């Protein structure tokens, strides 16, 4: 009987293109106050592919996403988005690249003084001034309907649950039709049912939009469901990268221990 992972693999096989990566992390190092967090990371993600980055808490997974979106700068190495190194770009030029990326923060990071609809409309109001007010409103409704939040448009973030906040955060991340989607612990803090719903939502969006996605998670079950490839970090390095079967067949002690405990 096909597992959820099998279904995911069937529906999210990467498009066969020239193989040019949309996101390329090359020999990146990052430390904070003498503590080395990332120590020579190499990763590539192509269009239509979902890479899950796994590891123990505190191994630099979220830092990796922050480096890719440009919220942190690497100490050395390069991060290329569509073959352009973003590390040294000034903020306004980096902004042009960020418009092609959507980021879901671990705790959604919704603007607490705005309603659900205003949160989703926020990127559109700043970057799609060519759209009329009614066009923006329609687009917001469509995005909220995609994530199942169309009935909560006028609620404030404090009035909705953590899972609902993540859905709204996801809708906001998709507002500008990004080519790259970065998700930081999308199921962290959620109950199993809500986690499953978020996984299904991500899978559905991937099928429809074929973005290059990087999901940071410590949830192996979630990673198996939504990702084509998995990369396991330990002590700042990628210990193994491949399919779930590759991880299961690995003889590396840390990999075996991680799978056993998950």
């Amino acid at each position, binding site marked *: 009987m096909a597992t959820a992972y099998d279904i995911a693999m069937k529906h999210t096989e990467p498009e066969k293109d020239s193989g040019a990566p949309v996101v390329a992390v090359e020999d990146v190092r990052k430390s904070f106050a003498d503590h080395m967090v990332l120590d020579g990371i190499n990763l590539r993600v192509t269009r239509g592919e979902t890479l899950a980055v796994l590891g123990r808490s505190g191994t630099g997974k979220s830092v990796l996403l922050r480096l890719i979106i440009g*919220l942190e700068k690497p100490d050395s190495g390069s991060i290329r988005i569509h073959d352009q190194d973003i590390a040294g770009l000034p903020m306004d030029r980096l902004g042009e690249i*960020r418009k092609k990326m959507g*980021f879901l923060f671990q*705790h959604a*990071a919704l603007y*607490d003084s705005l309603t659900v609809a205003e949160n989703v409309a*926020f*990127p559109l109001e*700043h970057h799609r001034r060519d759209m009329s007010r009614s066009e923006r409103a329609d687009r917001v409704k469509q995005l909220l309907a995609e994530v199942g939040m169309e009935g909560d448009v006028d609620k404030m973030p404090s009035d909705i649950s953590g899972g609902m906040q993540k859905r709204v955060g996801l809708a906001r991340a998709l507002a500008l039709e990004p080519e790259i989607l970065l998700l930081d612990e999308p199921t962290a803090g959620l109950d199993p049912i809500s986690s499953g719903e978020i996984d299904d939502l991500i899978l559905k969006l991937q099928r429809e939009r074929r973005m290059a996605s990087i999901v940071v998670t410590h949830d192996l079950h979630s990673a198996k469901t939504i990702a084509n490839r998995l990369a396991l970090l330990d002590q700042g390095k990628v210990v193994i990268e491949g399919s779930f079967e590759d991880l299961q067949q690995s003889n590396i002690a840390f990999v075996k221990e991680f799978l056993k405990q998950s």
Partner: protein
Amino acid sequence: MSDHKQIVVAGIHPLIPVQRSVSIPSALEFVGRMTNRFFEWFGEIGIFSWNVLKAGLTPPYEWRELVRQLDEVGSMSLPLVAAAGAAISVVISMEARYSLSRFGAKSMFPTTLVYSVIQVMGPIMTGLIVSGRVGAGIGAELASMKVTEQIDAVEASAINPYRLLAATRILACILMLPLLTLAADASGLLMGWLAQAMVEPLSFHQFIASGFKGSKLSDFLPPTFKTAVYGLIIGLIACFQGMRTRGGAEGVGRAATNSVVLASLFVILADVVLVKFILVVFP
């Protein structure tokens, strides 16, 4: 390695020596640390100011957010500033009437009140009240956004947070302080006249004519518009303290407190400098 010197105190009994260790911070190390922090703070706020200036002067401009902040800073502070202006003026009125009567100069009362309110009390009082209300509000709001990653979300959405969050608030403070000062002055003069009129009948027209007799625009405009500098100080310090916050709820509280304390301190220091400057440029 310990930061502190160890001082060993020997017991007085010759047969049973007792050693007690007492840590006393090195005064030199303390002064060195504080000096370092002092210059670091100025360096960081200098870099922050440059980033805000660059962002604020390049399009796209955040007009909607600016209007929202003008409302937040201006209309929300107006009742408090007007009330404070009225209260201070009543106090000045009572004290001035008593002092001037002692020296037989009661006829100078309107002029004394007008010059006291407009040149001295109105500007500094408005600056300190807005430091407290707006400075704490901006510091806490931006600090809360920082610790909940909302500022990171703004930046990840390809929007410059220096332009959207800082430049708009600072400009709103610069524009609204002179207007709030005028409101405080107007409220102060009205209440000062009422306080006087209750003791000795005097029409408002007579009061104003007498108070402004022989004065020039340069007596009153510079003290009012110097409050734009106060607005710059309050907005800049509050935004800086808020956007560099770390440490959760404690950090938010610290940012709000530091915003008020530092903004108030620098407003007072700026007042000293600006008064001297005005006296030199507009003798």
